[in-house]
């Protein structure tokens, strides 16, 4: 599905935009880029093809065979975005400090249909963030003031408040939010924050719920007028 936001300039796809960008660079007209801040197209980039890890990879020594493809500028945008999604909080690191941008790069660079479909949403989405920032007079999303960045996200991050013309941007943000949470809470820091206590071999019968866990459950169940019978 193609959603094109028509502003002041004719519809162009992202590759055309890039061609303009490079043409502009060649002509020494870098400043003109800022002028592009008005129009935007969500045309997906060409999907990456290449080999995945195959149907019989070495499971004991996992390797990611595909090359990472995000540009330094895109990674900066990703970093700024994921740190708004999950900023540092008390003892817990920010998403970028936990390595989320690298994961996003691995994800959109993976040569599988689902990841490539998401790449088709995410890459234009990163460009959209920059475009919005430029409309606010900033050089890019990553370099924009926190107020401008939040202003952009506030329009796409709350499901009931996304204007119809930003539906695609909303989907992009929602995807990035889910990926950021998934990437973050699968790290050692994420496990610690969320309190995942598992993946620990033990001997003897399964211990089952702790006494604290059982008292909490009992109160919760009784508050609903139900009876707790131990299994």
């Amino acid at each position, binding site marked *: 599905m193609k959603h094109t936001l028509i502003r002041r300039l004719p519809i162009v796809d992202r590759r055309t935009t890039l061609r303009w960008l490079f043409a502009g660079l060649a002509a020494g007209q870098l400043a003109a880029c800022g002028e592009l801040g008005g129009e935007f197209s969500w045309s997906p980039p060409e999907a990456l093809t290449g080999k995945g890890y195959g149907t019989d990879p070495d*499971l004991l020594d996992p390797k990611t065979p595909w090359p990472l493809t995000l540009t330094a500028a895109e990674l900066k945008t990703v970093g700024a975005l994921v740190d708004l999604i999950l*900023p540092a909080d008390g003892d817990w690191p920010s998403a970028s400090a936990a390595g989320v941008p690298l994961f996003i790069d691995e*994800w959109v660079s993976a040569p599988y249909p689902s990841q490539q479909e998401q790449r088709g949403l995410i890459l234009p989405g990163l460009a959209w963030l920059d475009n919005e920032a430029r409309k606010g007079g900033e050089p890019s999303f990553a370099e924009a003031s926190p107020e401008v960045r939040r202003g952009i996200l506030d329009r796409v991050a709350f499901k009931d408040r996304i204007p119809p013309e930003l539906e695609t941007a909303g989907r992009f943000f929602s995807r990035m939010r889910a990926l950021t949470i*998934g990437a973050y809470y*699968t790290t050692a820091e994420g496990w610690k924050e969320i309190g995942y206590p598992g*993946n620990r071999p033990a001997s003897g019968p399964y211990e089952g719920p702790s006494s604290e*866990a059982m008292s909490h459950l009992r109160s*919760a169940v009784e508050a609903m007028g139900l009876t707790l019978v131990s299994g």
Partner: protein
Amino acid sequence: MVDQTTEPYDAVVVGSGAGGAMAAYVLTKAGASVLMLEAGRDYSPDEAPMLNLSRDAPLRGTGTPDKPFGFYDAIVDGGWEVPDEPYSKAEGSDFMWFRSRMLGGRTNHWGRNSFRMGPYDFKPYTRDGLGVDWPISYEDISPWYDRTERIVGVYGANLGLENHPDSGPGVLQPPPAMRVWELFLKAGGDALGVPVVPARRAILTRKIDEREACYWASPCGRGCAIGAAFQTTTSLIPWAKATGKLTVQTGAMVYEVMLDASGKASGVRYIDKATGAHREARGRVVILAASTGETARILLNSQPNGRSEGLANSSGQLGRNLMDTVGSNISAYFPALEGRPVYNEDGAMGLHAYIPFWLYREQAAGRLDFPRGYHVEIGGGFREPGLGGYGDLDGYGSDLRRAVRGRYGAQIGLTQRGEMIPNEKSFCTIDPDLKDRHGIPVLKFSFGWSEHELKQVAHFQSAMRDLVDRLGGTILGDVPSPDKAISVGGEIIHEVGTARMGAKASASVVDGFNRTWDVDNLYLTDGSVFASKAHKNPTLTIMALAMRSADHIADRLRMGEL
């Protein structure tokens, strides 16, 4: 060009999964020599990445077309697609066929849920006039369930539930304690008359023989090197090998059963995948356990004297009656579980408890609008966080962090697993045009659900809504209409029925001992023989039937009948 193996075996077994390995085990124990042919590569559970971390795997272990159940899943060279081994679907039909190409087959990664079929399940036609009865009754197979459960190692409890038979004394291993979210669901279920009871799974909670008890970590689908979660590569196959009577040939893609001049099976033809050579293997008895799809494919492709209907198909039932389990899901969030004290809830990873079908009386009395039952598999707890399940969260920043933390351990997934009745729309044939990379004609699937299954989904949705409501929960996402909510045929990977068992040669492919009606020394010991598809997961029943069949074959070998 065909190479002939010189040595004739007592039995040639095609397949090394649940049915093939059980047959090979029973026969070798009885002193018979067995050649096991497996299309995939050799596999050792030592390859299982039991304690590897998802974060070290590509895409954090998320499933891809290469590894649909995740990077660390045990399945080798398989999934919904096998490289260069396509299958096709009839126009307007959807079907998903999960295959593997490895020793032990899909037993290396299955869910290990092991529910016995009950008396009603073997006589469904008698009960409601739909489908067909099995030629055997629950009483016939009950002792074989006991024997199978004893050697496999199944945890569970004898509860005296209707149509959910108890096991013999001392057969079951103790079930692991229910976890908080399971007890929570049980409290709600108790109030509504919905049972939440200990599940039955092929996982050791006590050490037996060389296999260790579960150590309460490591997803079972990765394969279980310590032998706690049952798979044939840690049990039946090594035990059969230890008799000195088993020869295993991997990379052997069987495509045809050979007949001798008298019409008896003399062996099989296969392609040695390493060299591409066509070979023959000979045996006094041929046992196909290549999987419901592949067994039908081999028989349909075996066309002695140009018989285009295939082998063992005088009934015309071969390939027909294809069934899968009815599947659908509801996920809910329970505020009452928020902020509960953390402890290790990995446990045996899968079900400690489940909801067995509880409405047989109402069904028999005509008070339900669907004829067959379902059970509900439940998932929740403080599980290892993954990439999915955050789609409904809103906003960003510190509020979002709090929401993720609050949600953790407060979500429960309710999964329907229901009975499908065989129908005219669901079958497989040989595709007239398409061949795999070995030149073997491939299967073409047709599949369709009927109103029976859709109404069953509607009942599940409404029953689960009541349960969620009683526990103050919120269903996450929309609940689609039953025709949208129901799984794709084959998706639950319980496909059975393509060579069904029956009392008459005119209406079935095999008799009550899994022997083809048309060929006296040709047996089928996989899911293809199922005459009905109860809501109970099929693997345990495949093994019990295979054990019973192999015992019968061993008797016949001993008596010189074969």
